[in-house]
């Protein structure tokens, strides 16, 4: 890579097991509060019109909640932001319902189930909820989905010189898919990334491809979350931001490639 890809983090949003928002997660990740995992609580979405709200599943609510938090903490306007959504499995409950119906005698899928089955469903509802009409992407890279989303956002930010909202999210499948893809809990993280420092900037990131091993987390239950949920592969990076520590961190990406991220907290 010719030069590191850089960005400033202007806002963060997070929702996970026992982690209700970014400030709560930051306390845990910085070691200032104990980690007490319990089932992820996904709040209702008030930003969608009632008809659309009824059609959304928990995965869309998960992604949008994290995204709205990041935008709100940065004091930004969602309507003008480019967005990158990245998820390993999308809406597993919806997929399960469709596969069950298709295995039965009638095969009558609900139209709402079908349009919710696209991997960019969260991106579509995000546009409806916020009026965002800029480019929006929907990525998947299996366990590398967070890293792939981060690279996509950083490259877009560099080339288009625009702020980009990254939302990485994964939710648990119901059985029987859960047994073949055991993601235990829903987790989403959103980072509002800007090409230059702003008043509310939290940290500067400089990202390079690396072959070094990914950092693990000392707290065993947080490490389990990192290892089990693709979007939570972001946790070592988020921990560094929460601790306001200078220095490099390596996070997981593809099997033979990792991302080395130099984190510089803003004063």
């Amino acid at each position, binding site marked *: 890579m010719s030069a590191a890809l850089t960005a400033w983090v202007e806002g963060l949003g997070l929702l996970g097991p026992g982690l209700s928002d970014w400030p709560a997660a930051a306390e845990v990740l910085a070691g200032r509060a104990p980690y007490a995992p319990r089932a992820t609580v996904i709040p209702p979405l008030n930003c969608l019109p009632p008809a659309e709200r009824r059609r959304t599943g928990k995965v869309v609510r998960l992604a949008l909640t994290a995204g709205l938090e990041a935008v709100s903490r940065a004091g930004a306007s969602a309507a003008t932001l480019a967005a990158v959504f990245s998820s390993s499995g999308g809406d597993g409950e919806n997929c399960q319902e469709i596969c069950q119906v298709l295995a039965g005698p009638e095969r009558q899928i609900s139209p709402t189930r079908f349009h919710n089955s696209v991997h960019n469903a969260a991106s579509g509802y995000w546009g409806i909820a916020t009026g965002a009409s800029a480019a929006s992407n929907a990525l998947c890279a299996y366990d590398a989905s967070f890293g792939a989303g981060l690279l996509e956002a950083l*490259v877009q930010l560099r080339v288009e010189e625009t702020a980009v909202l990254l939302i990485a999210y994964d939710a648990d499948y119901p059985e*029987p898919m859960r047994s073949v893809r055991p993601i235990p809990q829903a987790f989403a993280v959103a980072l509002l990334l800007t090409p230059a420092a702003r008043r509310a900037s939290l940290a500067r990131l400089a990202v390079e491809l690396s072959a070094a091993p990914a950092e693990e987390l000392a707290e065993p239950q947080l490490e389990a979350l990192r290892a089990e949920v693709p979007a939570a592969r972001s946790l070592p990076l988020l921990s560094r931001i929460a601790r306001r520590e200078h220095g490099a961190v390596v996070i997981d990406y593809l099997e033979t490639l990792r991302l080395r991220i130099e984190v510089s907290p803003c004063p």
Partner: protein
Amino acid sequence: MKPLALTAFTATSCLGRGLDATLTALAAGRTGLAPCAFETVRLDTWVGEVAGVDDERLPPELEEFECRNNRLARLSLRQDGFEAAVEAAAARLGGARIGVWLGTSTSGILETELAYRRRDAATGALPADFRYRGAHNTFSVAAFVRRALGLEGPAAVISSACSSSAKVFASARRAIEAGLVDAAVVGGVDTLCLTTLYGFHSLQLVARSACRPFDAERDGLSIGEAAAFALLERPPESLAADAVLLLGTGESSDAWHMSAPHPEGRGARAAMTQALAAARLAPGDIDYLNFHGTGTASNDAAEARAVAAVLGTRLPGSSTKGATGHTLGAAGGLEAVICALSLRHGLLPGGVNTRLVDPELEVSYLLESRRAPLKAAMSNSFGFGGSNCSLIFGRAG
């Protein structure tokens, strides 16, 4: 944007395997659509099925990726010297400097649909031979292609429904411009499955016979399957006159509805306008438009309005979905390759099956294929969730 060269490209669809079969069918105005006889599907509709996909077997070292989608990917990779071109690029640039960005909407979900019929009666468990990672997961096709081509650079699948494999061109060109990679394998692969056949049927968007985009009597889309690939690189010092370049990309969101387009084509206009700006071209510089043109009443009407507003009403264009069917997540890639063929051979493909162009649609829709020299062509791809992408390709000389 800085133009990139398509140093190799290929496509396989119901029109045939590789570029020669595709070009011959397009020039002749032949459709590859036929009454649906896929799997156990009992729907009164036509589909664009690729012959012999399941005769293709992946080599033993790639067995973990076995599914119809990856079989079609491999079948397509082996046409037109594409694998050899990527191998040569990897020898020149290093395999770690070549990225893979591919589009798909349904990946290998057919395997999952079939596995759900074989669940354990007592426990409900999926059969032991079900492959989640290699077949079902949306990333499967990019992981497979990266491994099959021996590449070691960044990779992702873009899955934004029917704009997926148009958007990969935008992502890859940014990655090259930012220096993340020096070249990229881009494209799209989508295969027939029950989810899309019964799903579009549930939305009452499926045509009863072969789809007729822009026809006054159009009654919906026909689903097809395809795999299309291109190798994107910075242009070499000297380019052959018939070399094809990616000149512009534009992306937008409708922010309107999950499965219906904005009635005035608001997002489509933004995508086309951005692509023109990126290519530094005026609307009059475009010689041919490959419409998204699915053949549904509302999609074609919204696109016609958007095209008339941005490009005027005299630009010759056609939807090639009457020939190939709507190949969903592969459509952007397939139609990019069709634009590349059009530029290389000076062919404007006529819209197959369409008999009487809807007088409500103010576009210059081509009913017959025509030979004329072309300098620049645009391809539109619009998907569920209001995801829009327009691409502009040009001829080097």
